[in-house]
């Protein structure tokens, strides 16, 4: 555990969530940029043409505040945008419109169960603010190509306090946050697609150090999946520990992650810290939100994953199953529809679980029914599975024999000790019997048949 290690990692996160609004953050051009031909989803503002002016997207603001509120943040009733200046070819105006000292929301928290300790971990959310996305660069030989389709798309940035001290917690936090964001319906939060991005800030301190916060931190960019997040953080921690052991302080810088080599590398573009020269965006009037506006945000709040989880468990679903089921809002929504339908039907259904809800949840979680199909079909499958089966014993024996004959390899494998091969055979029998058999009974019969011969 950490209190036996020499060093304790200090990790804070910056997560960008791309909001799925129809239009961009500061102009009403389409925001549907992903996969489109280059520079076909750009208007004058996103291109940084002379004379353009930003006009904020109301939905983006509402969603950013909704996100903040759902993370238990305080809402800033008085807010504004600011200009953040730096020069880079993917930033057409040479400033990004973001928020500096008056973000829409601040000072919240998010809880999850740490896979390391098995207990609740509480992460402080420093702030949630809104900013615009940049264009994309493609490096080709000794040239760089620029596509501005993504320029101006809204990003909600979540910043946490440096409350993490290991990569497993970070990974779990990200997974839970992803589900949380998807429940809000504001983003598909997909790390591979770039609609959820992570930049961890990592430093390391001596266990015995008086200073809680080291005097440097390293930011890591270009992490494209939760798995890479864990790897990148672990690599970086080791790298920093090594430096500190040699008596050096790691340089405060931004580093990229190379997922092929599994290393972080320095991305220093120029010496010295960036001076962003923030000042309030003069083209966008300030916001003074009244209670009516804030009420609309409250009304938008859906049931959150942890709330649904608690509710499902109360319905008698096994906690493990309830957890898996609630990872997807759409699947658990479908589940609720199914429950409503089935309960109002006259069918007499059996269930081994404490409650019918628990049984149906188990079927879905164990993929015993095809939840992707239309609701009618799923309900049919469920009813079929939970209706006591009248098995035609004669037909069953025939089918078992036929399956054994036509699947010699799995049969041999099983006889040679590969126990799992029987699962395949059971599946084949069930398929042929069109589900009109009890899998447990089928297994017994198959085992008997195979060990006898």
């Amino acid at each position, binding site marked *: 555990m950490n209190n036996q290690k020499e060093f304790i990692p200090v990790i804070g996160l910056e997560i960008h969530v791309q909001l799925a609004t129809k239009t961009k953050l500061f102009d009403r051009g389409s925001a549907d940029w992903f996969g489109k031909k280059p520079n076909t*989803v750009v208007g004058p503002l996103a291109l940084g043409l002379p004379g353009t002016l930003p006009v904020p*997207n109301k939905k983006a603001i509402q969603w950013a505040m909704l996100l903040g509120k759902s993370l238990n943040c305080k809402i800033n009733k008085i807010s504004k945008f600011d200009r953040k200046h730096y020069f880079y070819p993917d930033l057409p105006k040479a400033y990004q419109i973001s928020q500096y000292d008056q973000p829409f929301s601040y000072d919240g928290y998010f809880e999850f169960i740490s896979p390391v300790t098995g207990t609740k971990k509480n992460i402080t959310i420093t702030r949630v603010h809104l900013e615009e996305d940049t264009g994309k660069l493609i490096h080709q030989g000794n040239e760089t190509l620029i*596509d501005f389709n993504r320029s101006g798309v809204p990003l909600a940035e979540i910043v946490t306090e440096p409350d993490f001290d290991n990569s497993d917690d970070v990974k779990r936090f990200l997974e839970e946050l992803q589900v949380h964001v998807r429940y809000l319906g504001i983003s598909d939060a997909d790390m591979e697609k770039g609609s959820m991005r992570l930049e961890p800030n990592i430093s390391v301190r001596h266990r015995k150090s008086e200073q809680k916060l080291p005097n440097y931190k390293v930011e890591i960019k270009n992490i494209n999946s939760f798995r890479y997040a864990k790897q990148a953080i672990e690599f970086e921690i080791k790298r920093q520990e090594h430096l500190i052991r040699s008596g050096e302080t790691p340089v405060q810088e931004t580093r990229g992650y190379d997922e092929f080599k599994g290393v972080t590398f320095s991305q220093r573009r120029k010496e010295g810290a960036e001076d962003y020269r923030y000042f309030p965006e003069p083209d966008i009037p300030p916001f003074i939100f009244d209670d009516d506006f804030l009420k609309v945000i409250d009304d938008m709040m859906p049931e959150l994953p942890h709330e649904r989880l608690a509710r499902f468990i109360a319905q008698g679903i096994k906690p493990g199953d309830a957890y898996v089921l609630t990872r997807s809002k759409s699947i658990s929504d479908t589940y609720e529809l199914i429950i409503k339908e089935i309960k109002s039907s006259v069918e007499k259904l059996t269930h081994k679980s404490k409650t019918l809800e628990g049984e149906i949840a188990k079927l879905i979680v164990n993929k015993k029914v095809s939840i992707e199909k239309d609701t009618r079909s799923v309900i049919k499958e469920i009813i079929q599975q939970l209706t006591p089966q009248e098995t035609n014993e004669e037909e069953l024996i025939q089918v078992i024999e036929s399956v054994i004959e036509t699947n010699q390899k799995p049969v041999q494998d099983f006889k040679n000790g590969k126990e799992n091969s029987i699962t395949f055979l059971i599946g084949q029998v069930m398929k042929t019997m069109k589900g009109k058999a009890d899998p447990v009974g089928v297994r017994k019969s198959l085992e008997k048949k195979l060990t006898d011969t």
Partner: protein
Amino acid sequence: MADSVKKLTKEDIKHIAQLANLDIDNDELEAYSKQLTDSLHYVENLEDIDTSGVPDTFFTTHAKNSMQEDVIDESVTLPQEEVLQNAPKKRNGYFVVKRIL
């Protein structure tokens, strides 16, 4: 109030120019440092004005809460040819620059 403005040196000008992404010729550094220092001397007169109790931010516009509904305005997105029409260097729909390190 005593004028607390120090003269901007050529190094200062170089640093500011880098911040502003400008290439200043060496023979212009002296002139710019004098002109900028003169400007800074002049604005010292602001120290005469008591601004305690004045709000931190000021917006000239009297408008507030300017926001728009999330509805697509078809006239905003430009055809690709127009997006690229003024580009000095372009290829296959992209803007082209020297490789960024």
